[in-house]
């Protein structure tokens, strides 16, 4: 293998009749890392995953997964990948254990290793108690976990997670995130698609933003956020009489002398260039004995990043409130 990338795609094109699903996208997942592919419904995320997982043939471009060309050596690729789709692709009428045994048998594992592997995966995914119940009795979260376990049965080098948390409630989503982090810790490379901006932020080393079949940005989460503009420093003085002192301090650190803005009643904000502004402000507030109830430095949310890149608003998600990254300091 000559490349350090677990997944490498160049110029992938896919057309469905009149629809241009992919217009030549490039993707790379460095070995052992997580690439987040972020985009709205219909952006082409699933199409890209299906091409990389050998379920679809690209109309143009080429891709290598685990060192093998997906079009020329699909069976070599299939030996090395795990795929978890948007809908749990497991058999509802079989038990959790039977599902895993079946996958193991199809991967040519011996009876003994397939039993051992199923047991190990069921323990890992907290499904031991439910192992011998049919999937009909499983909750949505349990099905997703079993689905992921099934994808990991053959120790794949590369795992594709196509919207692994769509439809899960926030608590279940975070459980899933822990599992993904766990997989990566064991050396597996992951390509994850998501509509949740904060999911990409939480899991991915690199993020590719795609829209209408095109890559419109590729960077780390932090750098992407900076694309949008500067960070915002917010202060809420506990005593309204100290508003002037706060405004003076904020005006000193503001980018290019930008005016202080009353963000919400009693809360003042200025754009700042870098993280050191926070420390400066804390120092000055302490020196002048100004008490504050809230002090935060905020990066713009990925939602805003997306808006800046595409000019399209994302549909609101349940967790948008937590999408912004905050560094809170109590003073």
């Amino acid at each position: 293998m000559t490349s350090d990338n677990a997944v490498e795609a160049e110029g992938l094109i896919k057309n469905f009749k009149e629809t241009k699903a992919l217009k030549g996208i490039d993707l790379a997942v460095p070995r052992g890392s997580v690439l987040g592919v972020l985009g709205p419904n219909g952006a082409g995320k699933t199409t890209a995953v299906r091409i990389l997982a050998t379920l679809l043939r690209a109309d143009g471009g080429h891709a290598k997964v685990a060192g093998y060309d997906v079009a020329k050596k699909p069976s070599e690729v299939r030996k090395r990948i795990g795929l978890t789709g948007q809908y749990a692709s497991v058999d509802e009428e079989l038990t959790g254990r039977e599902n895993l045994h079946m996958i193991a048998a199809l991967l040519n594992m011996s009876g003994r290793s397939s039993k051992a592997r199923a047991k190990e995966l069921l323990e890992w995914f907290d499904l031991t108690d439910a192992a011998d119940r049919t999937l009909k009795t499983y909750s949505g979260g349990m099905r997703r976990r079993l689905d992921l376990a099934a994808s990991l049965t053959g120790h794949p080098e590369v795992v594709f997670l196509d919207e692994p948390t769509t439809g899960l409630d926030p608590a279940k989503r975070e459980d899933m995130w822990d599992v993904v982090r766990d997989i990566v810790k064991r050396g597996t490379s992951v390509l994850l698609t998501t509509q949740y901006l904060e999911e990409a932020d939480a899991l991915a080393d690199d993020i590719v933003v795609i829209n209408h079949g095109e890559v419109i940005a590729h960077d780390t989460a932090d750098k992407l956020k900076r694309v949008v503009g500067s960070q915002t420093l917010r202060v809420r003085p506990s005593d309204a009489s100290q508003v002037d002192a706060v405004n003076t301090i904020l005006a000193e650190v503001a980018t290019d002398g930008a005016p202080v803005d009353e963000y919400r009643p009693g809360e003042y904000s200025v754009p700042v260039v870098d993280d050191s502004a926070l420390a400066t402000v804390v120092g000055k507030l302490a020196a002048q004995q100004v008490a504050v109830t809230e002090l935060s430095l905020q990066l713009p949310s990925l939602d805003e990043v997306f808006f800046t890149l595409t000019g399209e608003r994302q549909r609101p998600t349940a967790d948008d409130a937590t999408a912004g990254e905050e560094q809170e300091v109590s003073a």
Partner: protein
Amino acid sequence: MSTASVTHDVEVIQQGPFDMFRHSWVLAKRSLVKTWRTPEGLIDVTLSPIMFTLLFTFIFGGAIAGSTADYLVFLIPGLIGQNIAFASVGIGIQLNSDMSKGIFDRFRALPISRVAPLLGAALGDVVRYVLLIGIMVGTGYALGYRVTTDPLSFLAGCLLAILFALCLAWAPMLVGLIARSERAVQGIVFMTLFPLTFASNAFVPTETMPDWLAAFANANPLSHLIEALRMLWSGGDWHAPVGWTLLWCAVFVIIFAPLAIRAYNRKA
């Protein structure tokens, strides 16, 4: 989530030319387990055949053959042919549901032959056909039907019927893979099967039909199977009908298997 340590030494059975059959067998076992878990899915091969046998024997027996006992000799092979054809819709529905539930995506992303999921589903259906034939002949016996040849001929008839069912199944499999809903599968398959089963020698001698219909009924693959069963179980020269039945089996597989495999590769 616990963090049990994961070992990577997995005993893998050597890959070989028999993988396709081994994988088909794994997937056939999946069908069998499902059949076992949802016995109500067997109604079309258990209760329906009994109902058909009773209805046809007592409603048509007197009119068509003069007596119910005489009609049974004619009817039981005919009903087996009809019910085998009707039961084949099950596999189309199963494949359609596998496809819509996404489990085929899982199979297609595994390093297994693309034929295995289809062959596995067909093999898993054998138990349904065995049940169907057993129940049909059993009901017939209760009403006075008797196989008058020898056990070997009876067994040969059973095997021929099962083989026919497995070959015919590729057609509903193809429908299952291209139709957009389970309801559509049912509609398409039954719409084809009703004329096929009634415009045959299953219930009435084809001589009573108008010429054009008799010509169709005599060429009907089901008629050949039914004729073969009558000869094998009640005596007569079975060579020609058995030969025609086998030929039709080959035709079904040659036409529908490649189309079904192609549909599976494309879609799923």
